[in-house]
């Protein structure tokens, strides 16, 4: 299995000279099994370039599976620009958490409503299909075995552990740490006082995450913030590389990939973050990589970066 990063940025796309090397497009990762099965995780703006590649492939898949962590704009905005959606005969299955009363097709179809986009989802040639995922309830798609994991993010999000070809990786984005804030279904203008129940819920979420990640080869984690930024915005629903390392060390994973980079972190700052956390990871026995757009990573057997 290998994974390729098509978008590594959080919040919104950031064009310009400062993002040429790490990339400016938002969340989207492609996984490929040894046998060629394809799985897409998140549909941020990176999905446009992925789609353009997929339609040019010799044996382009006609059925795409897209796992969504949640439906914030930076994780779905690429979907209307995904070229395979405009190829007749294509089927696109979308898997997502149901966080509110609305049906998934309404929520996801809502991004292409008339006011926002020239063509509604119902009018595109591809056939769309929506599946609800539930944390802890695993399922299989081709060569991939998938376990959704509840995360701590405004209005909810899910991570995925993905097992395939005798190895595994996990996608843990977006999430806050499991300490100061429990994200629920309402807007937070700052940190709220935690109740005892909240503390119990946070501890349970953290415990389940560590348990699901146990022994995973590679974990892609939301490390949007540096510690000083997190201190100012603990209620925004994102983590630091330090918090990711703590979880990964407990779960004894081999490799952590920093992901969902803040829009303000330009290439030079990203170089410093990459170097700093390579060292901090080594100190606890974890190989830390910093994702960049276009990076392909073999999962499992020690391979070289392509």
């Amino acid at each position: 299995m290998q994974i390729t990063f098509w978008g590594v940025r959080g919040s919104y796309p950031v064009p310009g000279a400062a993002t040429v090397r790490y990339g400016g497009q938002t969340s989207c990762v492609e996984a490929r099994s040894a046998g060629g099965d394809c799985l897409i995780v998140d549909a941020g703006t990176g999905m446009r370039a992925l789609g353009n590649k997929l339609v040019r492939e010799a044996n382009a898949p006609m059925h795409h599976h897209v796992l969504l962590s949640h439906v914030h704009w930076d994780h779905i905005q690429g979907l209307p620009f995904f070229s395979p959606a405009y190829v007749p005969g294509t089927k696109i299955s979308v898997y997502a958490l149901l966080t509110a009363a609305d049906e998934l097709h309404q929520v996801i179809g809502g991004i292409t409503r008339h006011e926002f986009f020239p063509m509604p989802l119902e009018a595109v040639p591809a056939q769309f299909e929506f599946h609800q995922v539930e944390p802890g309830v695993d399922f299989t798609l081709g060569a991939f075995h998938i376990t959704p994991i509840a995360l701590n993010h405004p209005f909810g999000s899910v991570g995925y552990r993905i097992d395939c070809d005798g190895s595994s990786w996990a996608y843990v984005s977006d999430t806050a740490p499991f300490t100061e804030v429990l994200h629920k279904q309402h807007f937070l203008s700052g940190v709220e006082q935690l109740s005892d129940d909240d503390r119990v819920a946070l501890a349970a979420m953290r415990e389940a995450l560590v348990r699901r990640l146990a022994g995973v080869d590679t974990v892609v984690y939301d490390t949007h913030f540096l510690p000083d930024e997190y201190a100012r915005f603990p209620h925004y629903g994102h983590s630091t590389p330090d918090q990711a390392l703590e979880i990964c060390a407990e779960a004894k994973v081999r490799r952590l990939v920093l992901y969902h980079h803040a829009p303000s972190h330009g290439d030079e700052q990203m170089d410093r973050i990459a170097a700093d956390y390579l060292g901090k990871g080594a100190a606890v026995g974890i190989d830390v990589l910093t994702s960049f757009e276009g990076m392909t990573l073999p999962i499992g057997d020690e391979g070289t970066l392509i």
Partner: protein
Amino acid sequence: MRIRFWGVRGSFAMSGRDFLRYGGNTTSVELVTAAGERLLIDLGTGATELAKTLMGGEFGKGQGQLPILLSHTHLDHIQGLPFFTPFFIKGNQIRILGANPISGLSLEATLQNQLAPHYSPLNGLENLAAGVSIETIQPGAALEVPGFEIETGAVPHGSMWTTAYRITADGKTVAYLSDVEYPSYEDPLEVALSLARGADLLIHDAMHADHDYELRRGWGHSPAAAGVVVAERAGAKKLALFHHSPDATDDMIDEVVARTTARTAVPVFAAAEGSYLDV
């Protein structure tokens, strides 16, 4: 009047080496009068760059005032809204002016949808700390914005309409006609000509290179040649090609400019992110 392009890309923000000279951010244009009054048109991702500059001044202290005109609510024109930091500072007064979409939803309901809890942690306009007013305009009517005289008109854009603007300040006039496709580009609609009449600068949708247009007719955007016809017939003094296709690399845009320049006596340039112009 000074005009600054913060986002010039259409449809989709493009990052990477091929888009560095003209820029990859989606549409946002700032106008500032000699007396310092400011007006913004459209809230694409380019607005997030402007926000950084604004926050260094009175907007960072909650003393900023900004009217924003929207051409329409397609995502590339409002994508920057949830990340436009002046919205998060109490005391700033921001007006968003635009027409109701023809779907029957109001402008306000549309922007609320953009910030719905599914899509954005902001969970609604009411959570923006600044004073924000959403003002529905009737295309065709004149607008009152301190320092600027504004005329408006509806122009066709695929299955919907966008609002085009004619803005006059300091005795100079800028026409903004983005996201428009005329039934025939050789024969632009009168509403476009009258908004652009004698303008010192015409900013026009040029999403398609002329040779690509036939394949994309009916998609709601113009070939570069459309802006030329409008500029010539309306007697505009300068033409800025705008709303570049996400597929157009810097070199391709250079080529469009060269071809367009060769066919008209009107001075033509392609709008580039970060650049400004005194009219």
